[in-house]
């Protein structure tokens, strides 16, 4: 009997691989390539042990701990230790994201579009679809581990031996597996694919934040987060395997739980039953903007709470930062020395930049929702009524701008209020707020890019995420890698004034706004000229 639950799994696995025959190799190869490139970059940037040791001192600072995880091997900061310590966490988060996206795509998205129903009507086991995608992801993450280990070993860097590389790669793979498990469970709990994605990413961000707070304040807290577990593998220094095994075990448990939940759930529903709603629409729903707002309300609240939390946790770090800087005043990277500002103040723009880029995620989601609506065949309803395309796109634009404004405000308030509570020397709240809102023009430019794509190349619209990832990479790591100035200028975030250490540069902000407006206008023109389809 039970055997029949899994009939056809092999065939479905091949089918998953067939559908992702490009997507999957691209993901896996990029991880291997980026890991290798970064290790090489570290070799080039830090010529000798002294330079690396200086970096190690910087890494002792609590803000860095919050960002990349607790330091280890800092006394002998080899290139291997440096790569693992500074890159593992961020890469693991992105690997987790990959797993989440892939699992959601093959579970709830397929289910929502009715494809699973077709498959289930064939002589295929009830759990075969979920099992096949989970097996594919386990396999993919093993391949990821081996590829990364291989690509790091062949670099021939002295401190990067095969065992260390294998630990590093496996830590990434384990993180991929556990978040595949998380997404699989979320897919059973949520009523649709959008919520699955939202819930899984929320878990991922929560895992990151709780670890950040825990690492700085109370280590016990960090153990809730699987991201903390993999960091404990301490690749290239101690090469512990147990944290990796523990993570893989956790992943398998989650997967079994997901299969169980899947077996007791009805197709097309989650565990929360659908309650009856209003028979009549409230006034606020009755416009394209009202609809856009209503569709994204829950997401907006969730992201707002998340950003506020992130701001608050960075704020709580500011206090520690203050006392830390009192002991050591050696900051060479990340923060350029500039006279007249406390080091805490110099840190604020760095934190704001990270939060602004994170806050751009819901902003882009808001504008790209237009594309999702089109794909789901729902724009047809709107456009066949007395609504112009300008008004339609304008509503989503307004929604995106409002979202951006809210995100920046919450980030700045969280950082400022909690920061001031933690620090002995208070900073004006208005300064925090302007440091945050200074990023609004950059967000507008990102919206402009998204609109340009929606108007002219709707099928490529999601490439704007790549641009955001690139921006994050450049802004976040630019300081570490001492990238030349012009690299940062390739993203709109590179033109934002770093308040409070810089004056607000209204010219730059104005230029960003003009560029954004032009991009938006071109996007609207394209949207007005093309077919609305799937």
């Amino acid at each position, binding site marked *: 009997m039970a055997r029949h639950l899994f009939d056809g799994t092999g065939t479905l696995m091949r089918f998953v691989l067939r559908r992702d025959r490009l997507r999957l190799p691209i993901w896996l190869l990029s991880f291997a390539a980026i890991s290798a490139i970064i290790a090489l970059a570290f070799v080039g940037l830090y010529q000798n042990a002294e330079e690396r040791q200086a970096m190690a001192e910087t890494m002792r600072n609590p803000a860095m701990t919050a960002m990349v995880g607790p330091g280890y091997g800092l006394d002998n900061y080899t290139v291997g230790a440096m790569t693992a310590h500074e890159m593992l966490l961020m890469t693991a988060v992105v690997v987790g994201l990959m797993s989440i996206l892939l699992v959601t795509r093959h579970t709830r998205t397929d289910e929502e579009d009715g494809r699973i129903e077709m498959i289930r009507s064939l002589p295929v086991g009830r759990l075969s679809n979920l099992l096949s995608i989970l097996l594919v992801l386990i396999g993919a993450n093993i391949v990821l581990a081996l590829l990364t280990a291989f690509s790091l070993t062949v670099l021939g860097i002295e401190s990067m031996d095969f065992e260390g590389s294998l630990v590093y790669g496996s830590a990434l793979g384990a993180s991929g597996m556990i978040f595949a498990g998380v997404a699989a469970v979320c897919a059973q709990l949520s*009523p*649709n694919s959008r919520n699955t994605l939202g819930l899984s990413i929320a878990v991922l961000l929560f895992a990151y934040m709780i670890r950040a707070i825990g690492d700085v304040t109370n280590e016990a807290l960090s153990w809730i987060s699987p991201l903390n577990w993999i960091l404990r593998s301490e690749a290239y220094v101690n090469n512990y395997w147990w944290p990796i095994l523990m993570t893989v075990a956790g992943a398998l448990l989650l997967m079994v739980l997901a299969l169980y939940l899947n077996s007791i759930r009805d197709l097309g529903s989650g565990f929360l039953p*659908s*309650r*009856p*709603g*209003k*028979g*009549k*629409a409230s006034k606020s*729903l*009755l*416009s*394209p903007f009202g*609809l856009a707002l*209503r*569709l994204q309300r829950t997401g907006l609240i969730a992201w707002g709470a998340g950003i506020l939390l992130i701001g608050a946790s960075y704020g709580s770090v500011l206090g520690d930062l203050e006392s830390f800087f009192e002991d050591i005043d050696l900051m060479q990277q990340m923060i350029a020395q500039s006279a007249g500002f406390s080091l805490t103040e110099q840190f604020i723009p760095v934190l704001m930049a990270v939060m602004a880029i994170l806050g751009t995620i819901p902003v882009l989601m808001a504008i790209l929702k237009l594309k999702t609506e089109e794909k*789901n*065949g*729902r*724009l*047809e*309803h*709107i*456009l*066949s*009524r*007395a*609504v*112009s395309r300008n008004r339609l796109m304008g509503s989503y634009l307004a929604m995106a701008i409002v979202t951006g404004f809210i995100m920046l405000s919450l980030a700045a308030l969280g950082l400022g209020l909690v920061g001031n509570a933690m620090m002995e020397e208070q900073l004006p709240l208005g300064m925090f707020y302007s440091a945050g809102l200074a990023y609004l023009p950059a967000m507008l430019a990102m919206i402009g890019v998204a609109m340009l794509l929606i108007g002219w190349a709707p099928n490529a619209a999601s490439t704007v995420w790549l641009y955001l990832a690139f921006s994050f990479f450049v802004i976040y790591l630019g300081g570490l890698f001492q990238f030349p100035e012009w690299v940062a200028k390739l993203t709109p975030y590179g033109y934002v004034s770093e308040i409070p250490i810089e004056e607000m540069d209204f010219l730059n902000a104005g230029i960003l706004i003009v560029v954004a407006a032009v991009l938006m206008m071109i996007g609207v023109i394209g949207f007005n*000229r*093309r*077919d*609305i*389809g*799937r």
Partner: protein
Amino acid sequence: MTVLRTIGLTKKFGDFAALNGVNIEVGEGEVYGFIGPNGSGKSTTLRILLGILKATEGRAEIFGKDSWKDAVEIHKRVAYVPGDVNLWPNLTGGEVIDLFIKLRGGGNLDRRQELIRKFDLDPTKKCRTYSKGNRQKVALIAALSSDVDLYILDEPTSGLDPLMERVFQEYVIEAKKQGKSILLSSHILSEVEKLCDKVAIIREGRIIETGTLKELRHLTGTILLVETREPIPALEGFKGVSGIQQKGQALSFQVDAGEVDQVIRYVSQFGVIRIESSPPTLEELFMRHYEGTGQAVESGAGGES
């Protein structure tokens, strides 16, 4: 007066021509049926008429205005029900109906209530939980509660049960009485036959037949059912005779309009016991167009993914 017309409408998706010079014309107060096999271009035509797709060549006009450029103006007086109705899973049916009515620029609230009652829809349920027929009802109720001059309906009764189908037909007849125009694509030929004044048959993006049902029938000829004492020899080869079928003792076949006289003369030689004639049903007309040319089967390819 012409309410809607297309002139040489052509639509290409890449290299594939979904429409190839389509001409249709709907007059005021007319119910116009639009039929054709799957993938023949019905929905594409309707979408162009609504300014959702842009024609590659040709013109599409409603109320004398260009359906692409003046879309918003036109839509104030048009109600549309799309081919597949996808709704927002987390809004209720009632909310969606209100939104649709409002976006057109208002409608009649009493009528909304009446339609919800007649179509037997629970407006407090989330769209996620609606069956296909219920989603269809949401779109229909929203369309029928607006006071417009033209209805464009893409397979409006797909998914409706026979009772609901009848409710829908009543509303169409009522709208027609009020002098409104309706363009209706459908696969249910008995429905088209019952409701429509004029019919266009489209195939592979070309209109292959259009006119009133009477004209189409006249073109096609008559169905004869004949029972004779002696068997009728060589009927297969007889000019103007097609679709011969044995029906019990009798033979049924179709006779082209101009050949009826000749055929009856020939048949009468064999001792007629019974003879019945009937106009062809739309279904017979339709089948003739697709079977007669012998390549009906391959034309159904395609469909969006």
